[in-house]
């Protein structure tokens, strides 16, 4: 019964989505106030039905209802409750339902927090989001219904992919989808603004907090994914430039560019068409990611069970959504004249260079990810494009990006004097250079040029951000949240880059063969192997090793790296033992028995690797603070009157108010 309710709710959600995507937008075009007014209720009804459907699938999992094919394929009665819950989105069908639900949540949020926006604009936004919803719901109902029944009913289910049976990965997809789908809000705003025929500061100001929040979720999602890869895959890596990782990185890069470009569009009425294009790109790349992950056109570690038929459906959907928005852009962009002019040395220019570097990176990642496909499609054979390529290309582009990041904060809008800025930061530059040379010499075993570049970029960007905060001339507690947001965003990025460059250059790893009681010394630590025991988990059997780590005779930690077998023909999983720290991680992965009581063990010493994710956390905090700056609330309240009554008035009424507040 429950699965039928879920299925029915899904069908209802589709019906509502169709109404939502047709009437409000038509109402906006024909001045039909009643149709325009349908936007909010349909968005909320859509959310309600999707929530019902999702809860039904959740109950089916919790009750282990194996008459549902999806439940039987992805869970069994031995699985801990938390993984029964995360199994809801652990495979293709359910993850689509989560996607649709999150889209519903975002549209619902827009309908609730829309006080400052004209009803007509809102109608268009909600309709565009409805259209995306129709696509995904149709996809689900036609090709990937999670509520499909199974007969005969099996006594016991299979198992959730063991890789996914981990707390970090349980919350990774919801975060990532909140990010991907969150960009649909900025996208819908861009489309709505183009349909309305005018793109002024209003749409940018409106889209900014939403874009920020989506970006924060995406940042958290990507960081969780990389952290998970680090402790779960057992080879000490945290990023492999896998197609699926790249699929999440591309919207993030464009999203970062979008956040900055929106600032220019809001404050200086420049970059108008460029910002719209970025908003389209950010969401299009999220959709492209969905295609790449689910169609099987690329080989990836994390891809869903691939199916060309599903791929065809998403491709058609992609053509409709992206093709029509780019067509609309081609028609409307020439009308979008940017009024704010600026000189070569100005904050606009700084942000433009930042955008170019980010887009160049995105284009490179896209090129590298799809190049094997291009070559194959042209019948020129099979090639691989992997980390060595991406790392080679990413380095010079990040140097451009990071050097600009430091200067950018100090540049004035419109026009600035290079001497003025340079006078401010020259000591900072020298200090950053000094740190770049001293850190590798003092704290690391050897000096490498690459590490010095990384440290220079990190210290330059973070010092510049700190000086900038100090320069605001106010007590730190009185500064606007947006200021803190920008500073933390930059500092977080700097911390991540410091982590990446130092850990890539100075990690030590060793494969060793250890017998019971034998020890091995590496990077000043003594690793003593105390054998392997068999341990039973709730739904797996593990070989658990014990390794005592000492330094100069003092005990540091005891780690228990495991190899888990979840049965049912699944691959054994590595559960690394990690002693994490601020300055270094010690990482141990258990290999295989080598006869007698000897085992192969892989040891890693990774300096400041945790900074990579710490930086991501700081960036996310920055993004959140910026999104909740009181300026947005204030402006909305001020803007409320003129915008709601007359859409045309907001350009004149709001822009100056906003300038003043900013």
């Amino acid at each position: 019964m429950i699965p039928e309710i879920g299925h029915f709710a899904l069908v209802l959600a589709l019906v509502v989505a169709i109404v939502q995507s047709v009437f409000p937008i038509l109402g906006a075009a024909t001045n039909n106030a009643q149709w325009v007014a349908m936007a909010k209720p349909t968005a909320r009804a859509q959310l309600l039905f999707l929530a019902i459907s999702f809860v039904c699938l959740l109950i089916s999992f919790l009750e282990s209802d194996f008459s549902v094919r999806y439940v039987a394929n992805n869970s069994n009665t031995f699985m801990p409750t938390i993984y029964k819950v995360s199994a809801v989105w652990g495979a293709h069908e359910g993850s689509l339902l989560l996607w649709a639900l999150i889209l519903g949540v975002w549209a619902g949020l827009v309908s609730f927090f829309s006080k400052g926006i004209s009803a007509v604009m809102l109608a268009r936004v909600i309709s565009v989001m409805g259209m995306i919803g129709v696509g995904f719901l149709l996809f689900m109902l036609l090709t990937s219904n999670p509520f499909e029944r199974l007969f005969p009913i099996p006594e016991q289910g299979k198992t959730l992919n063991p890789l996914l049976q981990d707390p970090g990965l349980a919350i990774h997809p919801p975060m990532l989808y909140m990010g991907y789908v969150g960009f649909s809000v900025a996208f819908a705003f861009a489309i709505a603004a183009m349909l309305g025929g005018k793109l002024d500061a209003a749409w940018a100001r409106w889209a900014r907090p939403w874009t920020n929040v989506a970006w924060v979720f995406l940042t958290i999602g990507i960081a969780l994914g990389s952290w998970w890869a680090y402790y779960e895959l057992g080879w000490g890596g945290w990023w492999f430039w896998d197609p699926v990782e790249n699929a999440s990185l591309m919207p993030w890069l464009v999203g970062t560019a979008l956040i900055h470009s929106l600032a220019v569009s809001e404050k200086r009425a420049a970059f108008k068409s460029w910002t719209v294009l970025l908003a389209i790109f950010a969401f299009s790349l999220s959709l492209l990611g969905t295609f790449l992950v689910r169609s099987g056109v690329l080989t990836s570690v994390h891809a869903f069970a691939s199916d060309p038929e599903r791929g065809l459906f998403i491709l058609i959907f992609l053509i409709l959504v992206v093709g029509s928005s780019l067509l609309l852009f081609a028609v409307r962009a020439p009308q979008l004249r940017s009024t704010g002019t600026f000189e070569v040395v100005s904050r606009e220019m700084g942000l433009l260079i930042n955008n170019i570097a980010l887009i160049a990176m995105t284009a490179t990642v896209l090129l590298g990810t799809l190049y094997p496909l291009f070559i194959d499609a042209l019948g020129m054979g099979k090639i691989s494009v992997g980390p060595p390529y991406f790392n080679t290309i990413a380095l010079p582009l990040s140097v451009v990006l990071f050097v600009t990041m430091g200067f950018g904060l100090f540049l004035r809008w419109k026009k600035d004097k290079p001497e003025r800025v340079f006078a401010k930061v020259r000591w900072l530059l020298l200090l950053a250079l000094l740190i770049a040379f001293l850190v590798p010499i003092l704290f690391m075993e050897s000096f490498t040029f690459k590490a010095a570049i990384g440290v220079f970029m990190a210290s330059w960007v973070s010092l510049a951000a700190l000086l900038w905060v100090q320069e605001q001339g106010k007590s730190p507690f009185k500064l606007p949240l947006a200021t803190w947001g920008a500073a933390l965003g930059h500092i977080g990025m700097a911390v991540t880059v410091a982590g990446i460059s130092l850990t890539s250059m100075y990690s030590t790893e060793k494969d060793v063969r250890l017998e019971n009681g034998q020890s091995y010394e590496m990077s000043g630590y003594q690793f003593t192997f105390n054998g392997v025991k068999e341990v039973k988990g709730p739904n797996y059997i593990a070989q658990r090793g014990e390794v005592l780590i000492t330094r100069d005779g003092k005990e540091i930690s005891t780690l228990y790296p495991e190899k888990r077998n979840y049965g049912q023909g699944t691959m054994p999983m590595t559960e690394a033992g990690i002693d994490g720290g601020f300055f270094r991680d010690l990482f141990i992965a258990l290999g295989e028995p080598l006869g007698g009581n000897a085992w192969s063990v892989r040891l890693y010493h990774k300096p400041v690797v945790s900074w990579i994710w710490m930086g991501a956390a700081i960036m996310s905090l920055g993004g959140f603070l910026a999104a909740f700056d009181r300026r947005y609330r204030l402006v909305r309240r001020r803007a409320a009157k003129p915008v709601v009554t007359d859409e045309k008035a907001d350009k004149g009424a709001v822009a100056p108010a906003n300038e003043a507040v900013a």
Partner: protein
Amino acid sequence: MKKGALIPLIIFAVLVVFLGIGLGLKPREVPSPFIGKAVPEFRLPELMKDGESIAPADLKGEVWMLNVFASWCVSCRAEHEVLSNFINAEKVMVLGLNYKDEPDNAKKWLGALGNPYQHIAVDYDGKVGIDLGVYGVPETFVVDKKGIVRHKVTGPVYQETVRDTLLPLVLKLREEKV
């Protein structure tokens, strides 16, 4: 309409064409670099004939197939009947490469399922497998009279594989003059 504003749409259109073609491709199937080249030389002991050895050179002048198999490989069991029927019906010369297997297990396996191979080379440590670029067992190479690899099947041979590819190819290659 300004031309510049159309650029994103054009790029997208090109991308879509490639993605569409991509749907019909098989990213997991890596073509063998040996096609059109001589089969790598090796000499290995025979599994069923004690003290004897076999090399591709011994088979020159004939159209033959090289089938990589092992007793631990489940798909080898799946293709065994189809392959045996084809070999017996068309009297194809086949060299089996027993890849990373215990000879005793291989003998038992062949005893139970039947032995269609005229020669079986024992590649105990898998070194010859690496020389042949073997990455997923079973694999089947078709070699012409001059000792040139003409085709390779990665993964199990099905009835359709025999009908559509292997049989026509073997018949065609037999017609070729040395």
